[in-house]
Every structure is written in structure tokens, then in C-alpha cells.
């Protein structure tokens, strides 16, 4: 997708929240939605099952207004975490400018995190994208749970973050770490705005 459109003077960033089911991806978007003034946000589209699991994906458009003469828009997506929705995940990943990998800090979800991360790499590769070339940050959610049930930020980094990209501890339900993560991925994506980035 076009990151910078010089003709239309528009910057559009597509950011995808990826991770295992129930790790808190939708919660991240809901928290952001609740903090953004109405005039700056579009309608949050959320397709969920009756048990509140994301069926298709969530979509939250954010209008950041004119920055340095460019109309700046962020589009936040989540993917369904359950393994059988891989086709949807591939679809949502297409054209992503950056990925937030939302890991579940609970020790019992360790394997789910690894599986989801592997799935992310596979899906990107299938689209010809090397994960090492794409801005990615990690968020380790549910750090508010008792420490005997969870892995620490450092342990999560050791398990998932081999490239030492920015990572954030979070309690998305109460908002801790949500904007820090969004800021982290946004900065990483915007760093690629320099000349040479995709131009429409």
C-alpha cells in the first residue's frame, strides 16, 4: 500500500495487531478508540461472535489531521487469533506497514505465542515479506496478572524477541502500555517515511 502519497499529500499507515487468540488485540483497539476524540476517529468496525471472540477483524481508522502539510491517517486492524482463521489473517496482513505482536504473558500461553509468531512469519513470507524488513514491535499483555502466573517482560523478550525490536509491557484492559505500544510502532513505521519509501 502507499505509505506516502505526495500528490494527494497524504500519509496512510496500516498497522496490524497480531497475536494468539484472547491475547488482548481487540482490547488494545477499544482502549485507543475510547481515548480518541470523536472528530479524529472513524467508526470502529468489530465483527465478533456471541462469545466476543473476533470473527473476522477489527478496524479502527484514526484521522490525525494535517501534519507538515500531509493529511495523516492511521488504520489499526486486528486479526482473529484462532488458528482456523488463517485465511483472514493473511488477508488483513496484506499491505501492512507495521505489526504489533500482542503476546499473552500468561505462562500457560507460552506455546500459543510461539505458534502465532511463527504463523506471522509464515504468512508474511507467503506474501514475499521478510519479517526482518517490516517494522514490528512486541507487546506483552496481561502483565497485571499475578506474577506466579505470568512471564516477566524480560522472559517474554527472551522467548519471542530475538531481533531485540522495541517491546512493551501492558495491561491493555486498563490501558497501561497501550499508547506506548502504538507510539512505538508508529515511530518505527514513520521512520520509513524518508525518501525512497513507497510513493503513490
Amino acid at each position, binding site marked *: 500500500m502507499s505509505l506516502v502519497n505526495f500528490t494527494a499529500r497524504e500519509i496512510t499507515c496500516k498497522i496490524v495487531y497480531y497475536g494468539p487468540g484472547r491475547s488482548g488485540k481487540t482490547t488494545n483497539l477499544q482502549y485507543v478508540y475510547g481515548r480518541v476524540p470523536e472528530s479524529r476517529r472513524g467508526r470502529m468496525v468489530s465483527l465478533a461472535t456471541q462469545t466476543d471472540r473476533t470473527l473476522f477483524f477489527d478496524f479502527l481508522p484514526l484521522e490525525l489531521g494535517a501534519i507538515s502539510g500531509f493529511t495523516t491517517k492511521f488504520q489499526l486492524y486486528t486479526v482473529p487469533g484462532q488458528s482456523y482463521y488463517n485465511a483472514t489473517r493473511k488477508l488483513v496482513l496484506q499491505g501492512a506497514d507495521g505489526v504489533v505482536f500482542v503476546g499473552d504473558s500468561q505462562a500457560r500461553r507460552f506455546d500459543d505465542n510461539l505458534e502465532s509468531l511463527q504463523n506471522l512469519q509464515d504468512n508474511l513470507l507467503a506474501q514475499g515479506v521478510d519479517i526482518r524488513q517490516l517494522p514490528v514491535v512486541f507487546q506483552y499483555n496481561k502483565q497485571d496478572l499475578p506474577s506466579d502466573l505470568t512471564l516477566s517482560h524480560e522472559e517474554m523478550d527472551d522467548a519471542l524477541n530475538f531481533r531485540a525490536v522495541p517491546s512493551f509491557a501492558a495491561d491493555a484492559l486498563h490501558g497501561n502500555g497501550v499508547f506506548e505500544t502504538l507510539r512505538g510502532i508508529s515511530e518505527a513505521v514513520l521512520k520509513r517515511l*524518508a525518501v525512497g519509501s513507497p510513493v503513490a
Partner: protein
Amino acid sequence: MTVTLNPLYRFDTFVVGAANRLAVTASKAVAESPGTVYNPLFIYARPGLGKTHLLMAIGHAARAINPRLVVEYLTLDEFVEAFHAAIAAGHGEAYRKRFLDVDLLLVDDVQFLTHRREMQAELLRLTDALQTANRQIVLTSDRPPAEIEALDERLIRRFAGGLIIDVAAPDYETRVAILRRKAEERRATFGEEVLEAVATLGIDNVRELLGALNRLIAFQAVGDKPLTPEQARMLVGGEVGETTETTEQPTAPTAPTVPSSPSAPSEFDDFLSEIAASVAQQVDAWRGRVKAAILRWQGEGFRTAQLEALLEQEMVADPERALRVFEEDVERL
């Protein structure tokens, strides 16, 4: 090095009141006739009262009257940085020439001249040269020249020879007018008493006043009822945290899944301002590269009008290519 003028910082977006009327009048006079009325014009004020806004407004207005006018805005730090870079590269003369070609030079934050004798001497030389050529220089500072520590007496005298003017804190009426205007610009509607209530809180820094307005807008955006003056007062006074827990404050439309928090509006504002800085840095990075190339080629005695024309444009689709083409032309010719 040099940044482009912020398109929002114009005279028509500057709220005029008793505290800044004189400064605005002088600024407009300078914009209409650069180099002839008050030269140099020195504007000082505490932070957050609109110095940079006025400075850029002068640039916009002057350019609107005469689009061919060469206007350059930069902060003192950028001025110093460019000087050091030029000296390090052995292009001191090119640096001086660059500023001598400017019709309207706008220098922000000159209070940082403190103890910089070398830069003071450079600015003195430049001020003299610009004045002689009837070119305008406008400077801003957070204090009057005489209070800038260790500032060369000759510079103080040069500034006094033009016009030194201050911008004071806005009075109550101006604060109401600022809130009203900015609310209109943001298409936010509040009861008149709400804005008046905020104006009575005595926030005399315009930046903080706009921050308070942002809080009101964000809070009202997630509520189902209009804010009352009392709520506004508490919200801006930072006491809303208690009220959200104990009274019927507005809640997010998607509650209960969206938690509410007293820090909600500023969280997004902080995010926005950081993103804005990041975008500006990336989007305008090409200007620095073009300027550096101009300095380099000028230092080697080449004409750089072709590259300077690039800087006149708001955006160049492929500045690297333009630089390459220029370099090829130089080699070929």
C-alpha cells in the same frame, strides 16, 4: 536546518487582545514593508504566548504580498548548527552569503545567544549587513535583550535601534476570545459559560489554555451530555478523576468495554504531538540535505539557483534525484 513556516501560524489565526495588540501591529507593519519600518524588530515574551506564531505570521504575510520575497525562518540553535557545519566544512563565506540573500530573516529563541560570543559577533555582522541592504530581520526571545546574559552591548544597541516590544499574558477577555476561536476552529460547541469558566481559572499561558481546551473537547466527545461550567472547571483543574468515580460523568459510547480514565484526552494528545514531530522530521528531512548541498556547491563557487528553487516548493517528490541531476550537470558542464 531551516524549517518551513507552520501553515497554521498566520495573523488571521492569532487572537489579538490588549496584551499583544502592539506587537501584532508592529509585526504586520514589518510584513507589509520589510526593511523599512522597524528593523530589527525584537519581540519578547514568556514561553507559550505566541512569539513563534507571530514570527511565522510575519513570514506568511510578507510572502503573500510579495511571493518572490526570500523568507527564512530558523531557531537560534539551527543558526548556530548551520554556522558550525559551515565552518567545519570550510564554507564560512558561503554561510554568510546564504543569509545575505535573504529578504526577511526570522530568528526564533535568541535568548540562547548567552555566552556564545562567536555567534553574537556573527549575528552582529549579519544584522548590520541586512540593515545596510534594507533587508528585514525579526528576532524573538523569552526576555528583553538587556536581560540576555553576557550579550554583546553592540547587539543590544542594534536591537534598541529598531523596535523592542513585548507580548504580555492574555487578559480574561482575550482568554475567552482564544478559547472561543479555537473551539470554533475545532468545530467544538460549548456553552458560553463553559469557556468563561475556564478563562476565569487564570491560565495565562496560551499553550496551556489550548491544552485545557483539548481536554474539554476530548471529554465532551466521549460524553452524551454537554459539559457544564462546573465540570469544565473541575476537568481543567485536574479534579475530574474523582468526579468520574463518584458522579454521573460522561462515559465512552462503547462502555463498558472501553474503560474511562481522567488522563484520557492527554494520552491521545501526547501521542499526536509525538507523531506530528516524527512526521515533520521525516517529511522535511530532504530540506536539510538540499541546504547542505547548496552550501557545498556554493563553497566551491557554483551557482545553486536550481537547488534553491527546490526549497521554495512545499514538497519535492524526489529530492535525491534532483540532487543527482544537479551533480551530473555540474560534472558535465
